[in-house]
């Protein structure tokens, strides 16, 4: 919603108690945002007119709506935090916050929400960042359609775009996060909905989960990050319809799963990542109908991973489709499409008549001696891969897709 229509809409609302609109502008009776916030009664609206306000350390301690006109800029001049919300039912809308103070001892944010409920942060633009939006022990809020543009170069002196720490039931959607450390970071945060965000060019992860459960992220785009998405020590995460692209670098991946149980990964696209999904110690995960295209490794399984199901995925033109470092296999591959499949379908039921073995001997060798990768695409390697496929010696015998699809799932 446009700020102005939103304003009109808000003005028409029957406020709990004579809700007012307080105008802040350079020539107004209230020339600073701080003054506006000070004057406002609970459930009032503070309307910040276009202009640059050089303020920091703002604190909202009562339920209200703080709204910026297009061109309303609060410049923190690198003095610590710009704004803190420490009350329920606060909305911060349409403002442009810039120049957060960088500190090595404190995580300064452009906008911090502390122990609050029912907050709404929308249409904000954050620039010149350390941390962007920092949600702390807060719940039932929304972070929508914000633009967060950092200029991070290294991990150690940069902060995260949107960080959730001990939060529950927050919706994070439609945001664009670019050039920060982690685009979106969740720690001890449950039941978070992350949808339709674009997280790109970040130094570390596009999206990062730590010890967070029952979260969902759908239809996001993670592109060109140090690594796409890292999900660690969490359970019951839904990952649906996301795109992981061009997370390309020596230690890079589209999606990292580490100690994850009971997750569902469905309908995602993994394109041109060094590793599509890197899996360590993750069990009971369903990988359904994902597209893996032109990755170095589509799926790299490390450590013990049990009872996972891979079904209906398209594996197309990856250097390695599946890499395994163990001889034991307790995972099932069923009805996937493999562009490397060389079988046939005589009965024309859409499934290949001979099983497909997705693990190449070469990938096994590369696991052992990484330098051998210089022989990638050597005819000799194709030859020994072929012989291994015919009679497996080194790769798990039961690691096969008994009924591979003949055509890619559309």
């Amino acid at each position, binding site marked *: 919603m446009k700020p102005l229509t939103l304003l009109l809409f808000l003005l028409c609302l029957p406020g709990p108690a004579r809700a007012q609109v307080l105008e802040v502008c350079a020539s107004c009776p209230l020339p600073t945002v701080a003054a506006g916030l000070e004057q406002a009664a609970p459930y009032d609206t503070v309307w910040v007119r276009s202009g640059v306000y050089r303020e920091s350390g703002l604190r909202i301690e009562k339920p209200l709506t703080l709204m910026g006109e297009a061109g309303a800029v609060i410049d923190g001049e690198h003095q610590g935090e710009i704004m803190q919300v420490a009350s329920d039912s606060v909305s911060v809308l349409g403002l442009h916050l810039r120049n957060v103070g960088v500190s090595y001892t404190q995580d300064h944010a452009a906008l911090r929400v502390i122990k609050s409920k029912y907050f709404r942060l929308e249409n904000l633009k954050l620039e010149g960042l350390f941390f962007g939006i920092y949600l702390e022990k807060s719940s039932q809020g929304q972070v929508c359609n914000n633009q967060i543009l950092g200029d991070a170069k290294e991990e150690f002196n940069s902060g995260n775009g949107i960080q959730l720490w001990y939060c529950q039931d927050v919706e994070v959607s439609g945001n664009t996060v670019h050039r920060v450390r982690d685009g979106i970071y969740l720690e001890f945060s449950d039941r978070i909905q992350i949808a339709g965000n674009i997280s790109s060019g970040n130094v570390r992860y596009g999206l990062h989960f730590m010890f967070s459960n029952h979260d969902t992220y759908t239809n996001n785009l993670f592109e060109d990050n140090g690594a796409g998405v890292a999900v660690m020590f969490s359970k019951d995460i839904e990952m649906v319809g996301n795109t992981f692209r061009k997370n*390309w*670098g*020596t230690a*890079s991946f589209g999606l990292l799963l580490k100690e994850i149980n009971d997750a569902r990964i469905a309908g995602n696209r993994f394109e041109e990542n*060094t590793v599509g999904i890197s899996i360590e110690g993750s069990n009971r995960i369903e990988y359904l109908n994902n597209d893996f295209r*032109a990755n*170095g*490794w589509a799926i790299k399984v490390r450590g013990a991973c049990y009872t996972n199901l891979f079904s209906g995925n398209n594996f197309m*033109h990856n*250097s390695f489709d599946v890499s395994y470092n163990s001889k034991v296999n307790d995972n099932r591959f069923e009805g996937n499409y493999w562009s490397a499949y060389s079988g046939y379908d005589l009965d024309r039921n859409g499934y290949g008549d001979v099983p497909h073995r997705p693990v190449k001997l070469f990938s096994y*060798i590369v696991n*052992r*001696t*990484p*330098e*051998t*990768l*210089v*022989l*990638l*695409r*050597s*005819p*000799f*390697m194709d*030859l020994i891969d072929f012989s291994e496929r015919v009679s497996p010696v080194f790769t798990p015998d039961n690691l096969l897709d008994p009924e591979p699809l003949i055509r890619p799932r559309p």
Partner: protein
Amino acid sequence: MFKIVRYSFQDLLRSRWSYVYFAFYLLLGFVMLFLNHDLAKGVITLMNVIIILVPLIATIFGVMYYYSSREFTALLLAQPIRRSRIFLGQYLGVAGSLSLSLVLGLGLPFVLYGLFRSPAIWDFVLLLVTGVFLNLIFTALAFLVALSNDNRIKGFGYAVLLWLFLAVVYDGIFLLSLILFEEYPLDSFALGATLLNPIDLSRTLILLKLDISALLGYTGAVFKAFFGTSLGMLVSLGVLGLWTAAPVAALVRKARHKDF
């Protein structure tokens, strides 16, 4: 000498093999692009073809041409022409016509699919350059083997074995030594072993151009640091040049002392 090149070339233009070869590449280019529609992907797939088939075809074609043009050679030997010119001329004629087939055969489909507007153009150019080098190298090796063996069957066998060695067996030995010595730092060794084999060198050059180096971890970084610089590129092309010059020089030497 250029007269000999011209006559060899004309001779080849008349033989249907050059057209078969040309048509093969043309078809390959179109099929590849028809299936892929993506020039960059096409380049990767073509690489596989180029590093295996170009050397093989150059080897077979070179040996075949040498043996089937023995009459022409005999005729020329009695003429007031320097021996080295005769063989160099024929060699350049064959290598030239093979390279032309390659460049035109693959070039046409790619140009028609909009190569000049594609960012893949430099990858493609590199692909063709290495392809042409492989043609030059393996035709020279084939000529050398054929010149050293009057028995056609033997010459053919040795030439194909040489191809097999460089294309396949070499990598096997390479792989084994990498695994055997995995305890040691192997990056310089891998780099050296790659430089020593023209097929491996071509493959690596193209792969790195296509930015597969990220897959290679630390070794990839070492490779990228070497091949990625213009100096590394120059060294690589220099090595390919050396690989061409050495058999050609041996060919000339051998030709000078051979009885016909």
